[in-house]
């Protein structure tokens, strides 16, 4: 059996140590806050709809994040029936476009006075409307990676890192009482690293995914009245 030489062993150990340190460092820390303003609970025949806020000029809540929260709430134990955002917005067109969507519960009250809106809500069986508002910001980009290609081969060398901060609020409106029954806020931060030793090794902190998971789990408990 061929034995590795001492210098090769040292290099491999150094590489393994660097990867381990980076893995341990690229974790995400998530904080969830809940503010309850009313009683909640949902029957088996009722559903919720999760919508993203898109009226701000400098950002908008990504549709992929809204879908993520909806899928998480619609799965597992105590799952809740979630109407997909696109299906709801298209069915209610033009009442939930960025320009026309209700911003406050009293706007929803005016909207529910439109018979066609009230009928559609009843048709969907919607008990709660959840508004997600937020975005993920990337900051603290440092380092650089250089890649080169030559007759002998190709490779990348360097090191890059950045920090992601996901900040989302979820406001829960009770469609029956036309009241805001609670707000859940989540803040997730994480550091990502990409060391490159011939090949880049991306160690990405799944910040937005963790924010989605924690927010969806908390929302599920909240809507179920726990």
């Amino acid at each position, binding site marked *: 059996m061929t034995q590795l030489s001492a210098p090769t062993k040292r290099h491999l150990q150094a590489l393994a140590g660097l990867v381990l340190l980076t893995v341990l460092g690229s974790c995400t820390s998530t904080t969830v806050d809940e503010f309850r303003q009313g009683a909640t609970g949902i029957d088996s025949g009722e559903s919720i709809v999760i919508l993203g806020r898109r009226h701000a000029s400098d*950002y*908008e809540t990504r549709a992929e994040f809204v879908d993520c929260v909806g899928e998480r709430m619609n799965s597992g134990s105590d799952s809740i029936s979630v109407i997909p955002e696109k299906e709801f917005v298209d069915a209610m067109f*033009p009442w939930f*476009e960025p320009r*026309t969507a209700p911003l406050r519960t009293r706007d929803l009250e005016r909207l529910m006075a439109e018979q*066609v809106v009230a009928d559609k809500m009843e048709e969907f069986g919607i008990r709660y409307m959840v508004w997600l508002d937020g975005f993920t910001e990337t900051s603290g980009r440092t380092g650089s990676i250089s890649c080169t290609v030559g*007759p002998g081969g190709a490779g990348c060398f360097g090191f890059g890192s950045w920090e992601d901060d996901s900040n989302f609020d979820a406001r829960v409106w009770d469609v029956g009482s036309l009241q805001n029954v609670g707000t859940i806020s989540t803040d997730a931060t994480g550091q990502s690293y990409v060391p490159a030793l011939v090949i880049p090794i991306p160690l990405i902190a799944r910040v937005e995914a963790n924010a989605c998971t924690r927010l969806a789990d908390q929302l599920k408990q909240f809507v179920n009245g726990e």
Partner: protein
Amino acid sequence: MNSVSGQTTSTNTFYKRVKSLCVAALAVLLAGCGVSNVVIEGNYPTPNVASLPVNVAVVFDQALRDFHYIEYSEIGDEEYNIASGDSHIALFSAILPAMFESVVMVDSLEEAQGLGLDAIFYPVIDEFQLALPQKTKLDVYEVWIRYNMRFFAGDGDPIADWVQTSYGKTPTETMRGTDAAINDAAVVALRDLASSFSLSFAQVPEIKDWIAAR
């Protein structure tokens, strides 16, 4: 002798590969220098609004059908050619039948006058603006469109003439091309037009008075 001929063969193969790679790289470079054509395509739902008891002819003239906008680079080269005529027609075809009792589409004002309907609607695109992240340094693609909406009686007498604007944006995303992002922003802008037009049409003062007088 065999090793010399073997070396020559592998050297020739190497140079052939390098030549192929250079030709491929040149082709990619040249393809990136031309204008990018974007044809706006989207789905527009039927609005949930009360329809007015009015039979309307809507004029889609050649300027609207062929409407396209060209975005220029900072050095004056054509970067993007955005064609939105068909999408505008698809949009109005989706929303107008829900707003009026009946809708007939025609190519000119003269043709509409000949039909003897209650009213004629004639939309015109005045201006189209595009904002790209690489120019604005923001993380969004933005589209802004200004329309001149004209409403006539069935015999061609003007009833109302007003300006309507629409706005759409879409965030930048990894792995999504610029063409797809421009399309998404334009579709959001067209949906914005549909929502504001369908909800505010009957509130235009001259139209409100005309409907009340019928």
